[in-house]
């Protein structure tokens, strides 16, 4: 089971623009839900979108930035990650064992991103929703069944496959690293 420790909610949209999610996440209704769930800080990475206007809320402190060299530290620190449906962001959060809510951007024309989010939602590794159902999802967050930990990545599968393909002789006697 994935347990949330700590009080930071980190929101990321990667290199995209997703103003509707950003607005929804700093909305009083969201801040309220975060506060009730025990979170005290909200950090928003808004990418190419518009900088959010935040109404001061007593319970949750909010900061926002557009981009950073690396989001590693924020991802690591977060107790809850809310992300757009980009596979990179999703996998990064899951591989760090983070509780993850993915919001699918329905304005994207070619929305194959939804496939990954919905599939992982079905496998109970994350909660996937759309902007219009985002606040409801937040409200129900504490009541949803616990999420299943994501299996650790197995890069050696691909590595061994390619080795075998390329007929790498030095692999024959060695165990995988």
């Amino acid at each position, binding site marked *: 089971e994935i347990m949330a420790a700590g009080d930071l909610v980190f929101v990321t949209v*990667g*290199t995209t623009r997703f103003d509707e999610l950003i607005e929804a996440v700093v909305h009083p209704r969201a801040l309220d839900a975060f506060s009730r769930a025990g979170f005290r800080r909200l950090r928003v990475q808004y990418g190419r979108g518009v900088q959010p206007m935040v109404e001061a809320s007593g319970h949750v402190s909010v900061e926002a930035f557009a981009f950073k060299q*690396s989001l590693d530290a924020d991802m690591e620190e977060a107790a809850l990650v809310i992300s757009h449906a*980009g*596979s*990179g962001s999703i*996998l990064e959060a899951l591989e760090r064992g983070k509780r993850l809510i993915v919001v699918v951007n329905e304005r994207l*024309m070619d929305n*194959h*991103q939804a*496939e*990954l989010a*919905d*599939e992982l939602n079905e496998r109970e590794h994350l909660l996937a929703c759309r902007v219009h159902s985002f606040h409801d999802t937040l409200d129900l967050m504490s009541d949803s069944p616990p999420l299943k930990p994501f299996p650790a*990545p197995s*890069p*050696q599968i*691909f*590595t061994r*496959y*390619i*080795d075998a*393909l*390329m*007929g*790498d*002789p*030095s692999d024959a006697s060695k165990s995988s*690293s």
Partner: protein
Amino acid sequence: LACRRQGMPKIRALVVLGSGGHTSEMLRLIQQLVLRRGGEVYSEVCFVVADTDSTSRKSAERAMASRTGVKLPCFQFVTIPRSREVGQSYMSSVLTTIRAAVTAIRIVHSIAPDLLLCNGPGTCLPVCIAAIIQRCRGAGTPTIVYVESVARVHTLSLTGRIVMALRLADEFLVQWPQL
């Protein structure tokens, strides 16, 4: 047609990096492959990026950055014209892909890789085509491996479907059972 190198463990890989998501997935895929065992097996890696892609190179450099005790393979970057912009018509895409393929043919010929790895961006099509042409020249290499993105659960990407239809890859890998 796969090239088996007997007694010559050093392999030169040509890796195509597409935009954003494709790049991070590809780097994740090859990290263990390339950086393990002192970087001695896949000792030379050449990354292909589209000329309009400004971030993939930096991501790759970061991913290949020094880790303690790991010898780095030699790596370099080459650019090719972008095959297709988002929303570009299919007719003009064929022309721009051909233009990119001309550059790709030159690159593949001069690099002479043993292995070509791509994971789905339009950028990889001209490179796959160039690799097939390289093989037709009697070189026997490179082995062409196409990995469909992990984001593709139910449907193949357009690039994937083209690669399948034209049989451009020796190995076509998908990451979900539904495919």
